[in-house]
């Protein structure tokens, strides 16, 4: 009977990792004009960035409905009576709200805990992984929930973007708004903090940005997990992952990709890193 861990496609979990841990990923939607795609199901990262270049429409995203969440819970309730549903920051998406409603709508006697991760992408992903591992070890819902809540303050997400225009047009710029309007061509480094985008620093070149991000990451102690993500620059991402090797063996670093939903907001040319410190 173990605890089932549910999350959404904004987590950018590598498919094999989700499979191995038995995590259920609920897709958000991305639409280009009238065409609607389920994130990670009907459209993958390659397909998305290709469409981004070709489509006359700017992509838009939408959360899964409460009904969809309820359906998933309902299905899972046949196998288990404990579900942990971990989702993208409520400040960035209405998915958390849908999950809360979905939980309410469920009639089966199944314990469901819904948590706002205050994170996104592999920031959310690393928290999900920690919870799922605990579930695999046989922890009960209370325990798994505790692990998830402990992981939240120990998880960081940073990224360098080629441009802030997608974040701005998508309405997710948050506090990173302070970086808008620069007359110099600079690369912004932003973080996900308090559930929204925060400005960190700006540098002149992508190369400098990677150097800075490495420095920022190395300032954290007792790092247990790292994930590196990119929109469409696999070589740079790989080199960056290797540059983090003093902190973790390169094989231990997750390689992930910004999926269609994240791509809608970070745009092409983005590179990110998520880390989780040891839980006390």
């Amino acid at each position: 009977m173990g605890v089932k861990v549910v999350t959404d496609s904004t987590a950018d979990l590598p498919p094999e990792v989700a499979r191995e841990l038995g995590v259920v990923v609920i897709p958000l939607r991305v639409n280009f004009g009238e065409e609607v795609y389920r994130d990670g199901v009907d459209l993958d990262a390659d397909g998305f960035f290709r469409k981004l270049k070709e489509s006359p429409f700017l992509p838009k995203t939408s959360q899964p409905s409460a009904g969809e969440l309820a359906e998933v819970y309902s299905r899972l309730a046949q196998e288990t009576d404990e579900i942990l549903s971990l989702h993208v920051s409520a400040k960035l998406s209405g998915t958390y709200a849908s999950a809360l409603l979905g939980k309410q709508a469920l009639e089966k006697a199944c314990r469901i805990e819904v948590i706002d991760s205050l994170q996104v992408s592999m920031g959310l992903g690393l928290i999900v992984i920690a919870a799922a591992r605990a579930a695999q070890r046989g922890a009960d819902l209370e325990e798994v929930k505790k692990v998830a809540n402990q992981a939240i303050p120990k998880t960081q997400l940073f990224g360098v973007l080629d441009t802030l225009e997608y974040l701005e047009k998508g309405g997710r710029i948050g506090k990173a708004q302070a970086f808008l309007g620069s007359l110099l061509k600079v690369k912004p480094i932003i973080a996900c903090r308090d559930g929204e985008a925060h400005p960190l620093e700006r540098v002149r070149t992508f190369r400098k940005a990677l150097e800075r991000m490495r420095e920022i990451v190395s300032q954290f102690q007792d790092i247990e997990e790292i994930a590196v993500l990119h929109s469409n620059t696999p070589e740079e991402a790989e080199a960056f992952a290797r540059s983090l090797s003093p902190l973790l063996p390169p094989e231990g670093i997750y390689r992930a990709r910004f999926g269609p939903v994240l791509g809608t907001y970070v745009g092409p040319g983005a590179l990110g890193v998520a880390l989780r410190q040891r839980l006390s």
Partner: protein
Amino acid sequence: MLSLSGEDLEGMFTAGTALLESHAAEINALNVFPVPDGDAGTNMLLTLRATLEEARRISEKSASAVAKAMAQGALMGARGNSGVILSQILRGLAHALEGKDCFKGEDLARALGEASTTAYKGVSRPVEGTILTVIREAAAAAQAKAATDSKDVLDVLEAATIEARESVARTPSLLPVLREAGVVDAGGQGLYLLLQGALSYLKGEVDEKGYPLLALAAPTPALTLTPQVQEPIYGYCTEFLLEGEGLNVEAMRGKLLGMGESILVVGDEAKVRVHLHTLEPGAALSYATSLGTLRQVKVDNMEDQHQEFLAAQAKMAPTPLGDVSIVAVVSGEGLSKVFASLGTTALVPGGRSMNPSVEELLRAVEAVPSQKVVLLPNNPNILPAARQAQALARKEVAVIASETIPQGVSALLAFNYGASFEANVEAMNEALSTVHTGEITRAVRSMKGRGVKKGQAIAFLDGELVAVGKERAQVLYELVDKTGPKEGRAITLYIGADVSPAEAQETLKSLRQRYPDQDIEMVYGGQPHYSYIIALE
């Protein structure tokens, strides 16, 4: 004469300032490098004007009160390195004259001695062969005289003045850069002229009435986000260079006084530079054309400039950086916009060869919303005034010792929104050394020791002369080459006011062709004097 009053003291300084004013352009030209932005003369002049304005305000005219008022005026009005040292000199003077209604020869000697010690104390790394040497040696001569029988105040001042002149002449022997450049120290020369003017006044050779002092613009309204701070919005900002023969600066100034405000007239018989704010630029220009040939005429509608800037600001209004505000000194319309767009809270105009005064910097610091302020002077000559403002401010102010625009930009970019104030100050200071600064301009005079002929294009890298040539583009390439090819490096070109868009585009294209693996960007800076300022990372 045996003893002097506060009124005499005021008169002496007024006459000294007038003499300095008439030589301000020459002093500006005493630049170690033949670059057009020399401003020691203007800085000292403006500092002294602030000094005298303060002295005029008080009703009690004892020597003590007048000296104190002058020190206060200088403290706030100090501009540039030389201005700040002058303010320290006046501070020492005022301290020695405290409580005195009148002063005699011995008092003057002692006051000059204290002026010297205070000046030295105010500089973290005193350099000989500068204004410091001159005040020290002049004070020593004054004290030697006062110890003899002829301790009359006039004799004491004369001894100080003669020694000052000789001390200035010796400065090249103490400071190699002066010798190489074939000039004496500008600050020292200014100090000598101040003493000489005072002496002439005491001797009755000069009538103070012949030197009307022109008030600069009145104090400004709130500074925040507005660059046109110290000039009221008043008509047209009119500037020109007048070339002719037998030009009479005094007469010109007198005539222009009736036409507007913020009058600045400096020069000599052959060349006079004029700056004024007037509702009728035509009248000023007609008057000038009747005297000679006009060059470099510039007429700007100040209201337009102001409105344009406010509109741009409203669009780019930076959100407060947490609880920290950043104040930067910038000169150049484009550069102002760049700094504003990167999150600078308030800009203090560097002005055309006019460094901001301590008071202007202080007002900017007080005007920004936060209690924690970072100050970027972007010029080594502004650093002393910045530190002075920091000492006087009631807020927590950190001065980042940025010496150039590229350094200022690097520091600004290094600001981390997630870090503490202290961590940011450290990061911003560290960022200064991560960028090299290139500057391209034209030599305003020859420099024999370096094979520079007047009019040639010259390039500086981090303050060192590295290339000389006929064309700007040529020395620019040499400069970039000298820093070695670095793959993936970022180069930013800030285009000056005297470069046409066509030339700028051409230059950018050529640079990109020459260095295809480097990231080269071009931004309109609009800065005066330097055709190109280059940031090389």
